[in-house]
């Protein structure tokens, strides 16, 4: 029993509420948001160390015995993701000071951000399948606000489709939870895991597994149901896009990996084979999209789809190496996607266009921007010793160990396509003839966007170089994913 693990959820929620007052005072809004995020980061870092030393932390509300109360569980997977979420939000909010615009800041942009991380952290931490739905709705509601905030024509048009897709997938989520409840008669995730192990996953549970894949896949943007993502994500301004691209799809990925490693582990030849196939097709579809577009936003957005495929490919292998790789790659991808979106936001700001054909020659005017983009691009691809390398290496190794030689080679080959897609941005925007440049670029505004971006890129470099120090944490996370009994034992024992 340890209430400490709730702090990274409650603190952003509390600060979101006090931010609702004084909406016109920008200085108050900015300082309070940063303060709230810093306090949450400290708590989350403490939580990671605590989980590392003492194992998974459990809270059951109202001191009910475990399968009956609502449980919050912070194991290594959840704690690491919560910490990453908060650190990224800190940088994105800082970046937003220079680029989000006064009107949005005065209309509940910061409370929206705080509510979204309340939902995201809650979804990572919860140990109750229905509460997962509730926290999904919290973060979706905040994302509806952020995607439409500003009320431009494109935003209104895209947010209608975004909401419609998510309302339908939420309805499916409720239906799936209802089916699961009728079969196993419990909502506590640890208890579900135990009961499914008892009855050895009959066919109906495999159906429910596929339904869960459909529901979470819609949020995570896997192959047949990623259609909404490129247009919806291109509508809001860059800081919101960075927040969405870094966090929202990853919640879906987390939910898939949680349910597929904790519940549905008794019919691997069907469920995980399906996940494997979908992951590979997702990578192919993302590669096609990333190469097809000449719009910088779209190229990076399709790279989200590729990364989702790579992580789920690691999850589908179901061996410890690949799951450790998936954890490494998941956190790497959150960091590097935020950094890349922030970088192209600066590119868009200095050129005044998103079209690659109109850009060119930025290396002469903005050399520092160019080199940091190159580092981030290499990090995304996984050039050693940058951050993407170790995750991809472990995922591929796990793939070979599980005997999926061809699909592992395909994942490896997709790195080249990713490299090509970001190098196209590099070649078109930074090399060659001088292209279009925006006329009213203010140096101070540029610096305010550039400094947090640089810090985040440097953080990603350290993530790559510091692999040695991170391995014990990631190994812990992988152990929990591969062996559900650690999770279930901790939860069942924690309530007594």
């Amino acid at each position: 029993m340890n209430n400490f693990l709730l702090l990274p959820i409650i603190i952003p929620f509390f600060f979101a509420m006090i931010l609702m007052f004084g909406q016109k005072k920008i200085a108050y809004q900015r300082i309070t948001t940063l303060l709230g995020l810093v306090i949450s980061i400290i708590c989350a870092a403490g939580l990671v160390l605590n989980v590392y030393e003492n194992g998974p932390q459990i809270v059951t509300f109202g001191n009910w015995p475990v399968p009956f109360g609502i449980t919050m569980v912070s194991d290594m997977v959840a704690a690491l993701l919560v910490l990453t979420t908060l650190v990224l939000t800190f940088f994105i909010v800082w970046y937003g000071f220079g680029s989000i615009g006064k009107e949005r800041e005065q209309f509940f942009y910061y409370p929206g951000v705080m509510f979204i991380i309340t939902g995201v952290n809650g979804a990572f931490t919860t140990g109750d399948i229905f509460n997962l739905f509730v926290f999904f709705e919290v973060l979706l509601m905040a994302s509806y606000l952020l995607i439409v905030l500003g009320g431009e024509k494109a935003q209104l048009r895209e947010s209608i489709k975004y909401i419609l897709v998510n309302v339908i997938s939420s309805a499916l989520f409720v239906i799936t939870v209802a089916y699961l409840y009728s079969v196993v008669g419990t909502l506590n995730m640890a208890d579900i895991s135990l009961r499914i192990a008892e009855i050895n996953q009959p066919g109906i549970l495999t159906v429910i597994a596929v339904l869960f894949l459909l529901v979470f896949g819609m949020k995570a943007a896997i192959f047949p149901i990623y259609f909404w993502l490129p247009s919806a994500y291109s509508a809001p301004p860059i800081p919101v896009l960075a927040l969405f691209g870094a966090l929202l799809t990853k919640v879906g990925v987390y939910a898939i990996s949680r349910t597929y490693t904790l519940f549905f582990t008794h019919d691997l030849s069907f469920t995980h084979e399906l996940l494997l196939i979908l992951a590979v097709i997702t990578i192919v579809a993302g590669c096609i999209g990333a190469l097809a577009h000449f719009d910088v936003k779209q190229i990076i957005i399709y790279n989200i789809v590729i990364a989702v495929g790579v992580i789920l490919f690691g999850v589908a292998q179901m061996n410890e190496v690949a799951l450790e790789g998936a954890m490494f790659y998941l956190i790497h991808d959150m960091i590097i996607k935020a950094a890349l979106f922030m970088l192209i936001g600066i590119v868009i700001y200095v050129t005044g266009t998103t079209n690659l054909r109109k850009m060119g020659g930025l290396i002469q005017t903005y050399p520092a921007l160019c080199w940091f983009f190159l580092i981030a691009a290499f990090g995304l691809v996984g050039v050693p010793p940058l951050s993407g390398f170790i995750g991809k290496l472990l995922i591929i190794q796990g793939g070979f160990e599980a005997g999926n030689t061809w699909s592992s080679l395909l994942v490896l080959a997709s790195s080249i396509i990713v490299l090509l897609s970001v190098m196209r941005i590099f070649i078109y925007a930074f090399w060659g003839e001088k292209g279009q440049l925006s006329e009213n670029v203010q140096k101070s505004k540029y610096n305010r966007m550039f400094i947090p971006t640089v810090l985040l890129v440097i953080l990603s470099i350290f993530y790559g170089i510091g692999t040695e120090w991170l391995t014990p944490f990631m190994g812990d996370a992988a152990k929990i994913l591969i062996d559900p009994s650690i999770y279930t034992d901790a939860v069942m024992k924690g309530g007594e």
Partner: protein
Amino acid sequence: MEIVMAFVCGFLFMAAIYLILSRSLLRIIIGTGLLSHGAHLLILTMGSFKGSAPPVLSDGVTDYVDPLPQALILTAIVISFGVTAFFLVLAYRAYHELRTDDMTLMKGSEENE
């Protein structure tokens, strides 16, 4: 009872899908409302209709209703009300800005507007 509920849920889902596939934004929103009603009835059915007394437990009480599906439905209803209200406001605002509520006119992206 389960058979009746299955037909009711199925009918609600059918109507919801029919409405969601139509062109008018308002009909789509009504469709999402029906969809969530169907889902809520499904939760109720999935909790099964055993028991007749309210779940006030004391010694010797064996015949009671499972309270959990009702708690779930309550939560889900509140969420779906919130989302529907937001959606309606958004539709109103979009109608003002875009001058249309026809979904076929809202497709496309910046480039091929």
